[in-house]
């Protein structure tokens, strides 16, 4: 697009062509609005990294029926594993299902490669009529009498005017901060993910992970693999590659003076992981920040003429059980788009009008999910859950399954003994049970 376009006026300007931005651009373009979707990468997805599992396939199915038939997807996830690791041992919850909601359309979730998936998704918005402007950085918004009236791009004559700006510019959202919707984020609220895509033959992946056809597995790990750093690891199966990585709380990396990519090597060398990656070839190394603190880091979501969605709005749910972001990005982008449509119909772009965005986030369970699990992120990143309990589970299981002629202890004395061995204190454990309950049970 040349400068001639930039003198045009748009109904909606979406900044960032990730899942939130493309969802917002798609719904607004379908409503017949004049929509501009701005992406700073060479193409949509070029700057984007996540695990990646797209959970909530049904959500995208509402926007694009049978989307998986045309989109570049890797495997539909029918199996999930949550593992606690000690240096020698892995104790895990292994869930696998051939229930219809997992193996039949619209499926539960798919592994995806973001540069491919995001590119496809943005192309759907484009096909619906949105203008996609690649290779363009947005440095600021345009303001007039307290109203956001467009964006300032880093181009010749780069001011572009629009009635509604939807900021989907990612975890490090300059726009949300510049407008004062988001405060400066703290290092304990952010996690650094480092990731590798490792190529492996499709047949090897199927055999190694006991997978049929295009079914896939998503594993997440917590414990010794990140040493004393607070964080976890993941391993997902793609069609002919694995996506795996380590996620470390930023503040904790600094405190422990640990390099994330060294933790990644330690993860690959762990006895429960090494056999899974053996013989693979590194295809790409990448890194990205994750907004991990959940509810407490969600900014003000809208102001006069502007809304914030996706990672820019902190909408990544990281609870240990769930590590989800793409679904909430799509949901929030769509909700912001719907709110923009309503505002354009009324030709009224005040904060009051755009508050419909929040109503929609509530109605579509985004706000509720984050509120319900508001205590979970801090619990997951707590000292004892990170270091003590994985060790407790590992040692306890080692003792439980060991048969050596000594007397078999029942579970309570065995647990008690193991807890004392690893240095756990009864009053702390009781406290943590309460915290776990508050985080997950009620």
């Amino acid at each position, binding site marked *: 697009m040349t400068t001639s376009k930039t003198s045009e006026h748009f109904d909606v300007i979406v900044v960032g062509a990730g899942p939130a931005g493309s969802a917002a651009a798609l719904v607004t373009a379908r409503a017949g609005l004049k929509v501009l979707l701005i992406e700073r990468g*060479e193409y949509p997805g070029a700057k984007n990294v996540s695990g990646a599992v797209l959970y909530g396939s049904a959500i995208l199915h509402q926007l694009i029926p049978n989307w998986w038939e045309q989109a570049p997807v890797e495997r539909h996830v029918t199996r999930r594993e949550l593992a606690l690791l000690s240096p020698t041992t892995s104790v895990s919850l292994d869930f696998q299902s051939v229930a219809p909601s997992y193996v039949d359309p619209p499926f539960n979730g798919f592994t995806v490669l973001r540069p491919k998936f995001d590119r496809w998704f943005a192309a759907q918005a484009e096909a619906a009529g949105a203008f996609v402007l690649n290779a363009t950085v947005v440095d600021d918004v345009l303001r007039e009498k307290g109203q956001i009236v467009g964006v300032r791009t880093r181009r010749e004559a780069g001011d572009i005017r629009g009635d509604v700006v939807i900021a989907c510019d990612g975890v490090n959202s300059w726009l949300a901060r510049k407008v004062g919707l988001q405060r400066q984020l703290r290092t304990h609220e952010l996690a650094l993910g480092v990731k590798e895509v490792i190529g492996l033959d499709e047949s090897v992946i199927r055999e190694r992970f006991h997978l049929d056809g295009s079914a896939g597995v998503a594993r997440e790990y917590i414990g010794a693999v990140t040493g004393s750093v607070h964080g976890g690891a993941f391993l997902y199966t793609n069609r002919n590659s694995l996506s795996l990585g380590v996620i470390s709380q930023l503040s904790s990396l*600094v405190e422990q003076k640990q390099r*994330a*990519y060294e933790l990644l090597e330690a993860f690959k060398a762990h006895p429960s992981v090494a056999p899974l990656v053996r013989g693979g070839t*590194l295809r790409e190394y990448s890194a990205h920040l994750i907004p991990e603190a959940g509810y407490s880091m969600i900014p003000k979501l809208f102001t006069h003429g502007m809304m914030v969605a996706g990672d820019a709005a902190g909408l990544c749910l990281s609870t240990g059980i769930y590590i989800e972001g793409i679904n909430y990005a799509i949901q929030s982008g769509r909700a912001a788009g719907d709110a923009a449509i309503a505002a354009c119909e009324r030709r009224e772009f005040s904060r009051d009008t755009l508050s419909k965005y929040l109503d929609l986030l509530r109605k579509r369970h985004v706000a509720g999910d984050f509120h319900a699990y508001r205590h979970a992120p801090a619990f997951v990143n707590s000292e004892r859950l990170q270091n003590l309990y994985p060790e407790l589970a590992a040692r306890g299981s080692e003792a439980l399954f060991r048969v050596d002629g000594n007397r078999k202890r029942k579970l309570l004395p065995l647990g008690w003994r193991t807890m004392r061995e690893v240095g756990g204190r009864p009053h702390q454990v009781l406290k943590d049970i309460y915290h776990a309950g508050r985080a997950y049970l009620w």
Partner: protein
Amino acid sequence: MVMTTHEEKMRTAYFRVDDTPHIVVDPEKCRECSVRACITVCPADLFVPLDDGSVLFNYEQCFECGSCYFVCTEEGALQWNYPRGGYGVTFRES
């Protein structure tokens, strides 16, 4: 190879390098800094401590993740920005 050195990792990522850096460090400020968290957290290992006590930043292979920006404790030591549109890292698989 599955186990890889950091150099081998970095060779797999693609960068379109601009003429001017998008992140600029102030060597004076960095000399006063005792934390130097940027050196630890940078996943591309681009912050290099120099003999004179300052820190050098090699912008060419930056993932633009923002880690250095968030951990920096010296006011004004780091001028952080995204690269010009179309420049910087381009992921193909991640």
